[in-house]
C-alpha cells in the first residue's frame, strides 16, 4: 500500500499513449459501424483513467483531431462524389440540364448528405457515451463545449463550410441552392421527396453558426432561411403581379389562400415549423399586403363581386385582408366607396323621379278625365313624388340589407367593416335633403295601406325597417315635424289602419330616440282618447236633457291641444295668404245649435278654455233622399263628405226645385274660404261619381259666376259612398310647403339652440367660446346636427338680449351668464 500511490499518481503519463491507442482504435470501429463487439466498460474506464490522471485536455484535443481527420478525409469525399454535373452551375448561373435530371441528382446529393449527418450523429452519440466522464469533469470545468457540440462544429466546418474545390462554392451554398431548387419544383407542382429535405433541414437546425451554440444563431436561420425567404419573396412578387394581370379577383384570392396553406404545409413537411410565421409573412406581403389595393380595384374586384353577389369570393377577399391587417383598411374603403356610389345613385334617382314626373303627368292630362285639369295634374305629380319617396326608402333599405347581408355572409359580421358600412349609410341618408320627409312618408304609407293583411311579424319587420333608417338620420327634429304632420292627418281623417300599430311605432321611437322626442306625439294620442270620452260624455249629456229630437244632428268631436297639433298641415299653400280663413263659417241653425250646445258643455267641464272650430278638417255623414226617377223608388244614399260640403249641400235643402245658386252667393251664405269652397264644389259638381250638383256652365274649373243646382238625376250604385275632396292625403310637400317647413324648422332649431346655450351657461357661469360650441353640439346631437353659424347668431342674439356678456379680459373669447 505504501508504494501504491507513488505509481498511481506520478506514473500518470506512462500509458496515456497506450490508453488513447485503445480508444482511437475503438472510435475507428464505431465510425465504420463495427461497434457491437466493443465493451463500453473498457472504453469508459480508459477514458475515465485518462481524465483522472489530469489528461482531460489532451484527450479532448485528440478526439477533436480524430473527428476532424475522419470528416475531412472519409466523409467529405463521399459526399462530393455525389455532386454530379446537373447540380453544378455553368457560367451563366443556370444549369443546362432538365428539371428531372436536376431533381434526381439533387436527391442523390441530399441523400448522401443526410446519411453522413445521421452517421455522424450516431457515432458522436456513442463517443459522447464513452467520454461521459470527460464531458462531466473536463468540459464543464474548463468551459469547453461538450465533445458532441465540438464535433457538430467540426462537421459544419469540415463538411459544409469547406469549398468543394478551391474556387467553387461551399457545400452549404450548394445545399441551399439544391433545396431551393427542389422547393421551386414543389411549387410548380412536381412531386419531391419532402422527407429527404426535411432531414437536411434538421441537420441545419442542429448546427450553429459558432461553437457557442447561441439559440438564434442556428445555421438554418443564418444561412438557409434568409435565402429561402428572399427567393420566396421574389417568386411571389412575380407571381402576384402576373396573376393580377391574367386572372380574375376570385381566382386570385383562392390562389393566394392556397399558396399560404401550401407554404404552411411545406414548412411542416419539408422545412422547419419555425419558418412558418416568416414565410407566411412573406407570402402575405407579396400576395396580399402589396397587392390588396390592386386586387380590390381589379375589373373583377370587389365592386364586381358586390354587383354580382359573389359572396363567397368577397369572403375570400375579406379573409385575405383580415390576415394581414385586422383593420382591413382597403376593403373597408372599397365597401364605403361602393355604398356611397350606390347611395348617391339612389338619391339622384329619387330627386330625378320627383322632378321628372311633373311634366309627363301634365302631358297625360288630356287623356285623363279626372276633374280639375292642372290641379289634378299637379296632384298626380305629387302622388308620383310620394311614390318616389317610398321608392327611395325601399331602395335605401334594400341597399342596407344588401350590405348587411354581405357583411354577415362574407365578412363574418366583422365589427370594423360593419361600422364603416353603417357610417357610409348614415352619410348617404343624411346627404339626401328630403330624407326625413321621405322616411315619415314611408311610415305614413305603411300605416295607411302597407300593413293591411299582414301578420304581426311582418308588421314588426316593417316598423323595424323604418326605425333602422331613422337611426341613421341626424336631423331628427325635421323628421319629428313631418311625422307629426303625417300622424295628425292620419288620426283626424281616420286614415290609420291600426291605432295599436301606431302606438307600437311610437314606443319604438321612444326606445330609439328618447322620451322627449315622442312626448308630443304621445300627447296627440292622448288628445284623441280624451276627445272620444268627451264626445261620448256630450252625447250622454244630450240624452239626459231629454231632448229626443230625432232630427238632431249627432256630433263627433276631437278637441286638440293647439300646441301639439300641426294644424297647418291641412292648409294648402295657397291658403296661407289671407287671414280670412280664420273668419267664422256661417252654420245653418240646425248645426249651430249642436255647436253651441257642445261649447256650453265643454266650458262647464273645463272653464277658461277657448275652443276654435277647425271646420276645414271635419267631415259629416249625411243621409240624402233623391226623388225617384222613372220607374224607380226614391233612393236614399248615405254620404260622407267634408264639413264644408255638408254646409254647401244644406243650402240646397231649402232651395225650391229648379233653382240655382251662384258661386258668390254660396260663398256669402256659408263664409267658406274661396279655395275650399271651389275644391268642394268641384267634387260635388264635377267629379262623375259624386255629382250631386249641376254646374252651369259645365266645365272642369269653378269660375266666378258659375251657378249650381240640385242634380235630380243623380245615380249611384252604392248606398254608401264618400265624397272626396281633392288633395287630402299625405304627400310629398311642394316647394313652397317645403320652404315653409324649413323656415319653421330653422326657427325651432334656433329656439332649441338658445335653450341649450342658456342651459349650459346657467350651469357654467363662465365658458370659452369653443367649449360652448362643443357642448351645445353635443347636447343637441340627439335631435339634429346644429349649424355652427346658427349657434353663433344665436349667441349674438342672446348677448343683445342680455342673457350673456362677453368677458373682455379673457385670453380666449369667452362668455359670462347674466342671471
Amino acid at each position, binding site marked *: 500500500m505504501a508504494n501504491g500511490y507513488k505509481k*498511481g499518481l506520478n506514473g500518470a503519463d506512462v500509458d496515456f499513449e497506450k490508453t488513447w491507442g485503445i480508444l482511437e482504435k475503438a472510435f475507428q470501429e464505431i465510425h465504420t459501424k463495427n461497434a457491437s463487439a466493443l465493451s463500453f466498460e473498457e472504453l469508459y474506464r480508459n477514458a475515465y483513467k485518462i481524465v483522472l490522471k489530469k489528461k482531460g485536455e489532451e484527450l479532448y484535443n485528440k478526439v477533436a483531431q480524430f473527428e476532424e481527420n475522419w470528416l475531412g478525409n472519409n466523409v467529405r469525399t463521399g459526399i462530393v462524389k455525389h455532386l454530379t454535373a446537373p447540380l453544378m452551375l455553368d457560367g451563366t448561373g443556370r444549369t443546362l440540364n432538365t428539371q428531372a435530371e436536376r431533381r434526381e441528382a439533387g436527391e442523390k446529393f441530399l441523400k448522401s448528405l443526410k446519411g453522413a449527418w445521421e452517421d455522424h450523429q450516431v457515432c458522436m452519440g456513442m463517443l459522447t457515451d464513452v467520454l461521459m466522464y470527460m464531458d462531466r469533469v473536463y468540459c464543464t470545468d474548463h468551459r469547453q463545449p461538450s465533445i458532441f457540440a465540438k464535433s457538430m462544429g467540426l462537421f459544419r466546418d469540415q463538411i459544409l463550410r469547406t469549398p468543394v474545390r478551391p474556387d467553387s462554392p461551399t457545400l452549404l451554398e450548394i445545399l441551399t441552392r439544391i433545396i431551393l431548387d427542389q422547393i421551386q419544383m414543389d411549387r410548380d407542382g412536381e412531386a419531391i421527396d419532402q422527407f429527404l429535405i426535411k432531414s437536411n433541414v434538421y441537420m441545419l437546425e442542429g448546427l450553429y453558426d459558432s461553437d457557442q451554440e447561441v439559440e438564434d444563431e442556428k445555421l438554418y436561420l443564418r444561412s438557409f432561411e434568409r435565402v429561402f425567404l428572399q427567393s420566396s419573396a421574389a417568386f411571389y412578387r412575380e407571381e402576384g403581379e402576373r396573376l393580377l394581370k391574367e386572372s380574375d379577383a376570385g381566382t386570385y384570392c383562392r390562389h393566394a389562400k392556397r399558396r399560404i396553406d401550401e407554404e404552411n404545409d411545406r414548412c411542416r413537411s419539408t422545412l422547419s415549423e419555425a419558418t412558418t410565421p416568416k414565410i407566411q409573412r412573406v407570402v402575405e406581403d407579396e400576395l396580399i399586403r402589396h397587392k390588396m389595393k390592386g386586387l380590390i380595384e381589379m375589373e373583377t374586384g370587389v365592386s364586381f363581386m358586390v354587383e354580382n353577389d359573389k359572396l363567397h369570393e368577397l369572403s375570400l377577399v375579406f379573409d385575405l385582408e383580415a390576415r394581414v391587417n385586422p383593420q382591413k383598411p382597403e376593403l373597408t374603403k372599397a365597401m364605403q366607396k361602393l355604398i356611397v356610389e350606390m347611395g348617391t345613385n339612389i338619391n339622384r334617382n329619387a330627386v330625378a323621379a320627383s322632378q321628372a314626373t311633373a311634366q309627363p303627368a301634365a302631358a297625360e292630362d288630356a287623356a285623363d278625365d279626372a276633374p280639375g285639369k292642372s290641379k289634378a295634374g299637379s296632384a298626380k305629380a305629387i302622388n308620383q313624388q310620394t311614390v318616389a319617396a317610398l321608392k327611395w326608402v325601399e331602395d335605401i333599405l334594400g341597399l342596407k340589407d344588401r350590405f348587411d347581408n354581405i357583411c354577415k355572409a362574407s365578412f363574418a359580421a366583422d365589427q370594423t367593416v360593419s361600422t364603416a358600412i353603417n357610417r357610409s349609410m348614415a352619410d348617404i341618408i343624411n346627404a339626401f335633403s328630403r330624407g326625413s320627409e321621405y322616411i315619415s312618408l314611408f311610415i305614413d304609407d305603411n300605416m295607411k295601406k302597407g300593413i293591411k293583411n299582414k301578420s304581426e311579424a311582418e308588421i314588426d319587420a316593417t316598423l323595424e325597417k323604418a326605425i333602422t333608417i331613422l337611426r341613421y338620420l341626424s336631423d331628427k327634429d325635421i323628421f319629428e315635424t313631418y311625422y307629426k304632420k303625417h300622424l295628425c292627418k292620419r288620426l283626424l281623417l281616420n286614415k290609420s289602419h291600426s291605432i295599436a300599430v301606431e302606438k307600437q311605432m311610437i314606443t319604438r321611437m321612444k326606445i330609439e330616440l328618447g322620451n322627449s322626442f315622442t312626448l308630443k306625439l304621445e300627447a296627440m294620442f292622448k288628445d284623441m282618447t280624451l276627445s272620444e270620452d268627451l264626445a261620448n260624455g256630450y252625447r250622454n249629456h244630450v240624452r239626459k236633457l231629454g231632448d229626443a229630437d230625432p232630427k238632431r244632428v249627432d256630433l263627433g268631436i276631437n278637441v286638440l291641444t293647439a300646441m301639439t297639433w300641426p294644424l297647418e298641415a291641412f292648409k294648402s299653400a295657397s291658403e296661407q295668404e289671407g287671414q280670412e280663413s280664420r273668419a267664422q263659417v256661417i252654420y245653418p241653425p240646425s248645426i249651430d245649435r249642436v255647436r253651441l250646445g257642445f261649447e256650453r258643455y265643454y266650458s262647464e267641464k273645463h272653464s277658461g278654455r277657448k275652443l276654435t272650430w277647425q271646420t276645414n278638417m271635419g267631415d259629416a255623414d249625411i243621409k240624402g233622399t233623391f226623388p225617384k226617377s222613372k220607374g224607380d223608388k226614391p233612393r236614399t244614399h248615405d254620404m260622407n263628405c267634408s264639413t264644408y260640403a255638408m254646409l254647401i249641400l244644406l243650402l240646397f235643402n231649402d232651395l225650391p226645385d229648379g233653382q240655382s245658386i251662384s258661386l258668390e252667393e254660396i260663398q256669402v251664405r256659408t263664409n267658406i274660404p274661396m279655395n275650399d269652397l271651389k275644391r268642394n264644389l268641384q267634387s260635388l259638381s264635377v267629379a262623375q261619381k259624386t255629382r250631386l250638383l249641376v254646374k252651369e256652365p259645365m266645365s272642369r274649373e269653378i269660375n266666378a259666376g258659375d251657378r249650381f243646382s240640385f242634380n235630380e238625376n243623380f245615380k249611384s250604385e252604392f248606398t254608401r259612398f264618400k265624397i272626396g275632396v281633392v288633395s287630402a292625403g299625405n304627400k310629398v310637400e311642394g316647394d313652397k310647403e317645403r320652404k315653409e317647413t324649413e323656415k319653421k324648422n330653422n326657427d325651432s332649431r334656433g329656439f332649441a339652440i338658445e335653450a341649450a346655450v342658456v342651459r349650459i351657461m346657467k350651469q357654467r357661469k363662465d365658458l370659452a367660446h369653443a367649449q360652448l360650441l362643443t357642448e351645445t353640439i353635443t347636447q343637441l346631437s340627439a335631435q339634429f346636427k346644429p349649424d355652427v353659424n346658427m349657434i353663433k347668431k344665436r349667441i349674438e342674439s342672446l348677448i343683445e338680449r342680455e342673457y350673456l356678456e362677453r368677458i373682455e379680459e379673457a385670453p380666449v373669447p369667452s362668455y359670462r351668464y347674466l342671471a
Partner: protein
Amino acid sequence: MQLIHVTARGQKLPVDDHADRRSVNDTVKSRDEQRYSVDEIMSIKTGVYSDLTIKCGKYMFEVHKVIVCTRSEYFATACKPGAFKEGQTGVIELLAASESDGTDEDPSADDPEAVKSMIEFLYGHDYEASAIFVDPGKVNEGKLKNAKPPLIPCGDCNTVMHAKMYALGSKYHIGSLKAVALAKFMEAASYAWNTSDFVEAMRLAYSTTPDEDKGIRDIVAQTIVDHQDVLLPRMEVETTVRGISGLAYDLLKQKGSTKPDVEGPSCNTCGGAQVRTCWHCRKGFVGCSCDTTHSNGNYYCKQCKKSHGY
C-alpha cells in the same frame, strides 16, 4: 434520503465465500426493513426478474435495469441497445482491482467490496461499510487530549471504504451516493483520523476524484489541519502529502480559513462539532451548534427527525 446515518453498532458484514453468486441484500439488515417493500427485497435476494448482470471480481450481481439504470447514468448508457457489447449481452463486467492488496495501480479498477456496497445503495439508498476498530487513546491525542468527556470512537470508522464509495459515486454518476459517502466519511474521519487507514483514504480521495470535486478533499484537508500537531510530524503523512499534487495547496488554503480556537472536527458554519445522543433511537450522532433542539429540549438525529417528524 438520509445524508448522515450513523451506525451505532459496527457490524462486520457476513461474507459467504462459498457462494460466488451472492445476493447483495443478505446484508441489508432488518433494522431498515420497514423502508422497503416486500417485493423489493424478494427480488434483490433471489435475483428474480433480473435483466442485467454486473460482475466485479468474485461477485456477480443479478440486478434490475429499472433500478440500476434509473439511478446511474453510467449503467443507463451501458445498457443502451444497439450500441456496445453490453447492450446486447446484458452483462457488465467491471474491472476489479487485484485482490492481493485492494489497490491496484490502475485507479480505474474497482474494489469489488465497494461495488457490492454500491449495488446495495442503488437498491436501498444506503450502504454499510465494515467497521474498523480504532484505539480510543489515539483518537484523543494532540489537542483533544484534554477533551471532557473524552471522545469515544463509534460508527464504522472505515474512511477507506467511504472514500472509495465517494469515488464510485463520481465515476458512475450517482450523485446521492456521493452525498451519503461524504457524510459517512466525515463522521468516520472525526474518529479515525489518527490511523494509517486515514492516510490511505487521503490518498484515495485525491487520486480518484477530479481536482474540481472539492467535497471529500475539503474534509481531508480540514482533518489534517485540525490535527496538524499530531499528523504532520508523521513520516507516512509527509510522504503522502508530498506525493499528492495539489494537497499541499489545499492544506494551506484550509489552514488560512480555519478558525484557530476550535477544537476537533467542526462544522463549517458554526465552527463546532459535538457527538450527541439521539433521544429517540439512543444512538450517537455528530452534530454542531447549528442543530436545534426539539421543543422538549432534546436532540434527535437527522434520521429520526425525518422519519418521525421531530
